[in-house]
């Protein structure tokens, strides 16, 4: 943890700024949300890590996708994700977004979240404990530091493919494409 490394702050203020002010959008997408209140309150206190919940996607740069994603929620997730300003980071919680988890045979939950929006990191567990969330944040720091947390860039580059998948799952989307360029668009 290089929070107190003044040199680094001078060298790459953007990265340092991103790392230590991860503002998480307040959106309860699945059951993993139950561990968010403990994380942001006194016992675990996510603010020590620079993580605070914020009300609107416009203010946030961290999207915690907490657990299973039903088809109906997917629409809201895409909307929310697209409203977030760059740079933005996504973290998938628990088994369900990875490979369907508990609901692998449900007709109403999507099985692989990374088919629809890009994900920077996954946390194992059902559901992940507060400790795991913190460790995930430190991992995210490392990724940002190394320039590897570039899922939002991927989204821009392959927007066409993502949009196509989104429309396969949800039917025609009633909002215009976020980007007009991007792989598979033409």
């Amino acid at each position, binding site marked *: 943890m290089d929070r107190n490394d003044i040199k680094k702050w001078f060298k790459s203020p953007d990265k340092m700024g991103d790392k230590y002010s991860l503002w998480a959008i307040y959106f309860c997408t699945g059951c993993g949300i139950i561990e968010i209140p403990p994380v942001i309150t006194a016992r675990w206190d996510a603010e*020590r890590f620079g993580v605070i919940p914020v009300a609107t996607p416009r203010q946030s740069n961290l999207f915690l996708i907490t657990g299973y994603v039903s088809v109906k929620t997917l629409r809201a997730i895409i909307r929310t994700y697209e409203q977030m300003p760059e740079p933005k980071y996504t973290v998938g919680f628990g088994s369900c977004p990875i*490979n*369907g988890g508990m609901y692998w045979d449900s007709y109403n939950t999507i099985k692989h979240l990374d088919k629809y929006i890009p994900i920077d990191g*996954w946390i194992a*567990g059902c559901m992940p404990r507060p*400790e795991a969330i913190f*460790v995930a944040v430190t991992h995210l720091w490392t990724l940002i530091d190394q320039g590897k947390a570039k899922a939002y860039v991927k989204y821009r580059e392959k927007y066409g493919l993502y949009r196509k998948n989104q429309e396969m799952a949800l039917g025609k989307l009633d909002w215009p494409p976020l980007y007009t360029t991007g792989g598979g668009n033409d």
Partner: protein
Amino acid sequence: MTEKIKKDRGSFLGPFNAVRFLWKKPKTLRYPFEPKEPALRYRGFHLNDWDKCTGCGNCADICPNEAIEMVKIPELESRPREGKKDERPRLDYGRCCFCGLCVDICPAGSLSLSRDYFHIHFDTDTFTFIPKNEILDKEKFFPAGEYSVLKASLSHRKKDYEGFSSDLKYSLFEPERVMMPQVEPEERKISFIEQVIGYNKEEAKKEASRCLECRLCEEACPAHLKISDYIRAIYEDKPEESLRKIFEDNPIPAICGRVCMKYCEAACSLRIRGEALSIRWLKRYVADVINDYKTAMELKPGNPTGKKIAVIGAGPGGMSVAYFLRLKGHDVTIFDSLPGGGGTMRIGPPIYRLPLEAIDQDVNYIASLGVEFRFNTTVGKDILFEDIMKDYDAVYLGIGMTISNSTRVKNADKCLLALNFLEDNKLGKAVEAGKKVIVIGGGNVAMDVARVALRLQNIQHPGKEILTQTVSLEDWDILPASKDEIEESKEEGIIFNPGWGPKEVALDEQGNVKGLWCKKVKSVFDDMGRFNPSFYEDQEMLLEGDMIIEAIGQRPDFSFIPEALFKKLEFTERRKVKVDENGQTTIEKVFAGGDIVNTSLDAVTAIADAKIASEGINRYLSS
């Protein structure tokens, strides 16, 4: 309360109450600097002790999320007789819900959950892994000092960190078997009534319900019976269906249900921490409750092919070959010198283990399908082998081992031979037992002989002082007889003298047997592991006895085969008849199986051989 609040506007000093919290310790855990250990029962990532794991796949079956898949591990070898498969579970943490059902169903107790739960990665492929434990997977487990939560993942785990683990009291399976009702030793040793009473319907269903359907037993069984299926049918109270399943691979359930060597039970996954399923007794239960196989089976022989097959020996192998070939439509004739079917089963296992009625139940059914039995017909005497070779399209040798070996010590001719003794007794010839009987041998046949002798003594010399004892080269630890037999013999009062070898039969002045001189055994096998006993020549003892029975093994009798043909018959190094993958010997159209071919020397292996041979014969005849 409501009223109070309305009036009580409170003091503006009220908020200053909070000042007292200034002196309290903060409640925030300074994680990760101040770690918090998960609970002792925490359900985290899996640990699997590969040495204990049998690869039974119960965990994969119970997993509600299909997160567990059994994968073949190339570096492991499959050992079906020990109930070990070369498969191990692979976990997908994109599916797992950490419920621990797999731990509670694991019969071996190899699977447990650790207290690790950190795995954070950007690649979803890393969430699939094959769990091992810290002993097998040293590079992935770290002692507390080297372990860091910030590095923790599926490949950086903490040592000695077992969490939720198996507890037999709360397991999802029942480790204890339903007690088999047996006649008490005091009662059974004075008569020949069948010792095992057999399960009734409730007991059988309850015992059948323990089966976890992992099918390790089916791989262990030489004849690969569909054990799980027929046990499930018993549980569902459909004995007819169960019988049909048994008959697919084994046409003598009443016999095998009593005297099978039960390789299946030795492989049963329940045996590891409890008692194996009573597979043999359940098979017997099916044969017991169905009096009439014919209506239950609804089987008919196939369309007549016009081919004729001779089977020599009506033992388990011979009868099975006849049954399988008859179903294919061939005409089968079985020759046997005994007055009834069963072969060694008819004369070997005493009545208290295998009554004649049970044998006849199986024999009669096979006969009812149109198999011709020619009893009291000794090949080579009553009918010539050459004639059989001429008249039939194929011949199956299921002759077994019919001659008992002798120790050939001094005066050994005064002793009785095991098979003769057993045969005479079982087939109803009067046998007189001495008051003090010595049985030489430590195998199952010796146990049978000793226990028969004890019963005869009790019946013939009631109230008198009697004694039956055995002498065997092998000491307790390598005694070849099965544990149950030894235990039951002891219960009945048989005395064991293991680790002694016969030296000389002692005679009195009249030339009657007076006892057996024995010498202490130094070792049974030599350095190469071959049977080659050595003795302490200076340690001797005399066992007193007026009757000695030798039960030290049997050999086959090939005297009926004409010399010219016999020369063509090739043998393996272990003095067994050599057969190819079709069960065919080196003589054209002669097939063989059973004790003369395999080294296991038991009924179910004979059936397995018979299955191979019957298919071989069928192929041979149709080509």
